[in-house]
């Protein structure tokens, strides 16, 4: 940062000529100080927003988790009941198991599809712009709207999917995709997420692919590497930071899944697609027990922070 920047009060000062004497040292230091004050002033709105709406709630949720905190009425301390009760909550246990299963399946599926799309639209050729737009367009639709869209699309009442599959003989009779069985409900949600998020992840992977210099591929070709070898030994290692970023976002996003199950499957059938965040919502606003919801939140937060710290460490070491 330049300390020679003139002070902002220097409105009347003439243009400094090249041979003009440098301002005295003390003057320069006070100019730097007033510039620091100015920077801090510009950062104040950010600091207020982050402090009031991020740090305070973060402390508050920890505080709430130590209390019996009804939606209405005065809270009373009951530490550590909210935490010990998590272990007895059967819905939490099944939601944890389901959320982990969903996260694994979704991350693998989404990563494979997004990487495939990125490779497909990587090179500039005719029509590639259209393909990129087609894959990106779903991300402009809000996720809740997309969930409702798929609710209709997969419904037997107006959806074409069942008719289509019946006409080519893959299924017969009535199939309820979103609530028939836990497998088909999970599958419906996964197809929805693939449709909505594959393009977005493709975009990030594409920036990573295009950052690899062409000479590297050229060198691999001269060395006689096959396509597969080039992909394994050149593309993947050079893409590592981007891949780590994309995987982190996919895993975090899946662990926090809510909209798709709340709207598409309603957590059913028989709570078999109830995610952890749905349990938190239920504790807070249906069972009206904010303390218990806060305790589950804190536990989830702890898992995510540990996971993110490990992830960041891996990222930093490799790059």
């Amino acid at each position, binding site marked *: *940062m330049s300390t020679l*920047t*003139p002070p902002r009060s*220097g409105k009347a000062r003439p243009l400094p000529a090249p041979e003009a004497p440098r301002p005295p040292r003390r003057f320069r230091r006070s100019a730097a100080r007033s510039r*620091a*004050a*100015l*920077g*801090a002033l*510009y*950062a*104040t*709105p*950010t600091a207020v*927003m*982050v402090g009031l*709406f*991020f*740090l305070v709630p*973060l402390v508050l*949720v920890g505080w*709430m988790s130590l209390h019996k905190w009804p939606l209405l009425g005065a809270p009373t301390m009951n530490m550590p009941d909210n935490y010990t009760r998590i272990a007895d909550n059967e819905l939490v246990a099944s939601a944890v198991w389901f959320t982990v299963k969903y996260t694994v399946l979704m991350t693998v599926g989404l990563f494979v599809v997004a990487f495939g799309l990125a490779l*497909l*639209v990587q090179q500039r*050729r005719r029509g590639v712009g259209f*393909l990129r737009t087609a*894959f990106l*367009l*779903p991300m402009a*639709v*809000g996720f*809740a*709207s*997309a969930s*409702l*869209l798929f*609710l*209709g699309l997969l*419904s037997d009442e*107006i959806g074409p999917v069942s008719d289509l599959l019946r006409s080519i003989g893959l299924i017969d009779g009535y199939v309820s995709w979103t609530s028939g069985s836990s497998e088909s409900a999970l599958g419906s949600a996964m197809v929805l997420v693939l*449709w909505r998020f594959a*393009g977005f992840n493709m*975009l990030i992977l594409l*920036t990573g692919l295009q*950052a690899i210099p062409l000479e590297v591929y050229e060198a691999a070709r001269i060395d006689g590497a096959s396509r597969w070898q080039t992909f394994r030994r050149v593309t993947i290692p050079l893409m590592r930071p981007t891949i780590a970023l994309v995987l982190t976002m996919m895993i975090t996003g899946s662990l*926090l899944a809510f909209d798709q199950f709340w*709207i598409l499957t*309603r957590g059913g059938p028989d709570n078999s697609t109830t995610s952890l*965040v749905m349990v*938190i*919502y239920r504790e*807070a*606003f249906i069972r009206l027990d*904010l303390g218990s*919801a*806060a305790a589950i939140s*804190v536990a*989830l937060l702890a898992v*995510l*922070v540990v996971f993110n710290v490990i992830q960041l460490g891996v990222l930093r070491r490799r790059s």
Partner: protein
Amino acid sequence: MTRSSLAGRWGYYVTGTALAILFLSPLLWSGWASLRTNSGFGLENYDRLFTSDNGIRVHHVVNSLTVSALTVAGTLLVATLGGYAFGRFRFPGRDLLFLLTLAILMVPYATILIALYVLLGWIGLQDSLIGLSLVLIMFQLPFSIFMMRNSFEAVPRELEESAQVDGCNSVSTLLRIMLPAVKPGLVTVGLFAFLTSWSEFFAPLILLNSTDQFTTTLAVVNMRTASHGSIDYAALEAGVVFMAVPCLLLFAFMQRSYVRGFTSGALKG
């Protein structure tokens, strides 16, 4: 042209076209389904969307527009000032504040929203569109501050210095010289803030209680979740189209600058 490369090209076009159809068909289908009625095509489903008992009302749309406008304006204001501060100034606590802002991304939505529900109640902003907008601005900050910091850093230093030598004070330098230079970043940040706030579901679900305050997204989802009997799927698809069309149009028009702003920001990180 060799045989294998010809086959490869055909393979590329067939795969590409099939995938493009798969990705576009749900969108096209929802438009078709929203217009289809018992007797052909018409706007009956949209009519039911706006008039049925638990359908959406004009004030829901006004609520959505209010929240989006407040969120976009607030995000642009805070992120421009903050990005300028982080990109061009040194001050005590700068790195800590920047890290804290990025840390918002690491904390699950649901975790802080439970506390924000209580906190907004304390400061008299329970069930209010302003409270919701403030929360949405906060959630926009990591991405927006990061984008704007990179944009301001990329502006040549000489531009700012010559403006100051010419007698501009700091505020007018920011307004007249720096803002035009970071316009692509502003477009990306503003578009992102609009798309998120217009479609956001979870934050309004928790922070808004009375149906009068509902945003359009909440009201449309309510048509599904509040219905005990059968769901009016056709009206629901009309709602989906009504919500999605503004976003799709904006996205289509601004895709180029949006994608460019996004990738340049992501690469520099």
